[in-house]
């Protein structure tokens, strides 16, 4: 189990490293997505329970305490769903912005986009 947490930490660090070092807009967006994926994975593992049941009350559960002990925690899954929607919309937005920048500058390289004087495009 702890191995998975190290994997999540590694993903997070890879993402942060990518955002800091990459020079290509698309690669920066990929790195942002990796950070988001790492945090979403962490959220899933917060609710994980080894050998857990689906959190639906059936006759098999004698009382609520038994149910609470056996079932996985559904709340982080609800959170992760929302968080995935947010990440998808953000990724889409970032891609739109970088496409617009590509139409203006003809490149995804941040050194060239931020280094050049603004071209006249009106």
């Amino acid at each position, binding site marked *: 189990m702890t191995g998975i947490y190290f994997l999540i930490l590694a993903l997070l660090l890879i993402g942060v490293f990518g955002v800091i070092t990459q020079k290509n807009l698309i690669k920066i967006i990929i790195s942002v997505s990796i950070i988001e994926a790492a945090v979403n994975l962490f*959220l899933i593992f917060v609710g994980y329970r080894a050998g857990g049941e689906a959190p639906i009350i059936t006759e098999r559960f004698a009382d609520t305490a038994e149910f609470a002990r056996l079932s996985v*925690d559904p709340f982080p899954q609800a959170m992760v769903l929302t968080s995935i929607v947010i990440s998808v919309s953000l990724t889409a937005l970032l891609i739109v912005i970088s496409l*617009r920048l590509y139409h203006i500058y003809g490149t995804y390289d941040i050194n060239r986009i931020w280094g050049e004087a603004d071209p006249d495009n009106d």
Partner: protein
Amino acid sequence: MIKNLLPLMIVLPMGAGFIIALLPEKFAYWANRLAIAVTALLLFGSGLFSTTGGYYEIGGWPMPVGINLSLDGFNRVLLLMVGIIGFTVAIYALNYMQLYTGSNRFFALLMLMLAGLNGTLLSGDLFNRFVYVEIAVISSYILVGFGCQAPELKAAFKYAVLGTVASTFTLLGIAVIYSLYGTVNIAHLSVQLAAEPTGILFNSPLLFAGLFMVLGFAYKAALVPFHVWQPDVFETAPAAVVGLISGGLVGVVGIYAMIRTIFTVFGITTWLGWMLLSLAVFSILYGSFKVLEQESLRRVYAYQTISQLGFSVLGFGVGSLIISQDGPYWVAVLIVAGAIFHLFNHAIFKTLLILLEGTVEHSEGYTDAVNLSDKTNCDRNFSIASFVAMASAAGIPPFAGFFSKMIILGSCVLAGYYLFAVVGVVGFIVSSVVYYRRRRRFFPGVEKIGGSMRFAVGFLTTVCLASTLLVIPSVWQLFPEQAAEDILTDQIYLEQIEEWRQKLLNMQLPSSVPDNSEVTPDD
């Protein structure tokens, strides 16, 4: 019950946003009117809520399971602030956004942003607040890049990428807190964290979560060293958007969320107080001195925003130090009330300054110093509005900006934190000097202001003048002081916990239900 209307503060703008987004371009006239009607309703609603408090359980689900909206002294002041800024910006944009195409899309995003801001203020649940913050912030990313020219897109990309990383770390903090306590309800967390025996500093997962959340919100408040996005955004985005960011977004999504997280969730501790103070001192000094070397007026406003919000955070930081070191309670209340008052004032005068600058840009097409200073045919009303905004921003005595800064600095001295008072005075003097040095640029000549822009500027000038009235003792007790007491004592959250406890006691529960020290959020 009036508090049952609370969800409307979020539902109305969000619903209007989706309706406006779906309307085709030829109904733009009606879309704009709808947006203004909704902002007027929000302003009316925030006025209605300005003397009440309470909480609302969404869907009737009781507290730790369901989601709730909470209204206490602190967020009702900021709700009023968002109401005023939203209304002004919507009216202003009616004329101003004619410079751009697709003005009804602007109004759709404006509505979503207001929904996000009101939601951030009202939400009594960490994860829901995160979602509302994201709604507000994503709309602002799009609004910053609204013009689709190269500089705007570059500013929006930088802002969006760094903002996403900051938000994700906030979410990581929330996840860590959830894994430790099994709840994200603010009231429930505040009780559980207060019962933590070791304190936050020596509890490493909690420390980790606290740092991530506070720094994530500090990014959104653009406090030094997380300010890099702000000057670019201010320089390039449309004036209406900059007014909204400077007046609403930075204060609500940044400062309010940070202060609520620190004061209510983590509790007031010395090390979090020092963290706030270090952010504040760097922001005040860096912001004020960086202003001196700026050429563009928008960049001046950006660095001014950093230093003015630094003042507000200084107030909160010193307040939490006084509380955690058992200093005099009334000084803590006074300085936190001053900080809230300054947050409110800053939103009003900075939005007014930015909207005035946008007016010049709209009518003349440039805001450059050389061309403006030799114009002689000045609009008198424009000059009056400029003077009021500038005087309040620079802290000239009868205006509100003077009182809020003086209250913060005076309470620093009263509490014996002379070093912070000195830092504050340096920031105060430097920022006043800026207004003196550039006075010609604050009185530019404008031949004619468009109808709706004239109304918006006039309305905001009136509010800016009227906010001085908040220092009248009885009004002061009702708004800033009540706000400070509520945030320092977590009044509304304690009430929620108490009511929940009563409910649990009355319910005749089976023995298997866990007591409140380890509640699983499962139904």
